[in-house]
């Protein structure tokens, strides 16, 4: 059932105390006689109270430590990734048992420039990992944007990438960043990159 006298915008503005005194008074008078609007207004209030009274979900213990330990050593406007790597070289040197990647699609000669995509599959065998993700130039180094899919301990993901130069890294369990020991790999067509896990520890 709808009320034809008061539109939804006005009722919402009344609820938010955004109306001038006169308009608010008119709505108040209308509410005395209109069960439809009264019910709706009571619902708005109920929802607002429910949210306000909901139990607070605080950050878990150790959250600050976790954030601080994930920060790069220094703040830079660009290319903070190498700084993260430096940090991880120190922080995870003892713990790191695997390793990882880096690849570059190098494509600098104008006559070879193509805008066609190449399907690049990244694959890594990690038996004990819970979450493996890929970060790189192609996803703004967002460590959550590109998760690997796992099948029998083999993690893989395929991305259509424009031919060009990329750097990337694999992140294991959201904290360990593994660089590729090869620094750069040149790819100009559909490629599968098997990320080794037995390279020198970092």
């Amino acid at each position, binding site marked *: 059932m709808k009320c034809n006298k008061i539109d*939804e*915008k006005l009722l*919402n503005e009344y*609820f*938010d105390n955004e109306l001038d005194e006169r308009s608010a008074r008119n709505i108040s008078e209308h509410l005395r006689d209109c069960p439809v609007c009264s019910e*709706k207004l009571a*619902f*708005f209030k*109920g*929802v*607002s109270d*429910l*949210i*306000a009274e*909901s*139990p*607070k*979900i*605080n*950050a*878990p213990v150790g*959250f*600050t430590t*976790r*954030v*601080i330990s*994930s*920060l*790069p050593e*220094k*703040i*830079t*406007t660009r290319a*903070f990734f190498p700084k993260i790597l430096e940090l991880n070289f120190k922080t995870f040197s003892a713990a790191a048992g695997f390793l990882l990647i880096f690849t570059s699609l190098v494509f600098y000669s104008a006559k070879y420039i193509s805008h066609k995509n190449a399907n690049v599959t990244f694959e890594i065998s990690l038996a004990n990992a819970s979450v493996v993700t890929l970060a790189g130039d192609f996803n703004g180094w*967002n*460590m*959550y*944007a590109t998760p690997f899919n796992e099948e029998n301990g083999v993690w893989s993901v395929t991305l259509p990438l424009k031919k060009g130069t990329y750097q990337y890294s694999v992140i294991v369990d*959201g904290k360990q960043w593994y660089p590729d020991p090869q620094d750069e790999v040149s790819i100009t067509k559909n490629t599968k990159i098997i990320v080794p896990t037995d390279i020198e520890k970092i």
Partner: protein
Amino acid sequence: MDKNIPVKNEDLIFIEETLAGNRESFSCLVDKYKDRLFNLVYRFMGNKDDTMDVCQDAFLQAYTHLNTFKIDCNFSTWLFTIAVNISKNKLKRKKFLNFSIDRQVQTEDDEINNEPADKNSHSEETMLKQERAELLNEMIGSLSSDYKIPFLLKHQENRSLEEIARITNLSVGVVKIRIHRARNILYNSFKERL
């Protein structure tokens, strides 16, 4: 207003010290805003794992881009802007991968959502109230992020329309309309479900 001045100054001091290389100062900012951020992002994401990812990433991005922070901005607004963008991207991705509904209900979180059972106090009325609250919470959770984010910034964070507009990168008018629509969607869905 006077009450806000020292708060602003405190954040600016932390920011300046962080930029000068003092990571401890950044941990003060994390301590100060982590619970508020976590509480809000939890509402967006619906589970603790995703909330943790979003909040951690938001602080990391705030830190790495701290030298682009404008002094005339409010740090919490800036931080929440970052978190909202990360949340939106993650929600979009989850929607695309089509596993959001299954993942949103997790046993670990159920402990938080459900109050301890007190059988004696469960009169018919309180049961009804609780069921109603659960239904409403579920409906808020299933609002699209376009509506849910401005709506929760308004009701959970008590942000002004101007602040919400800044955080969501929308105009004040659009923010207002989305909050109104969110309420109306909830109302209509609620009526249908009863």
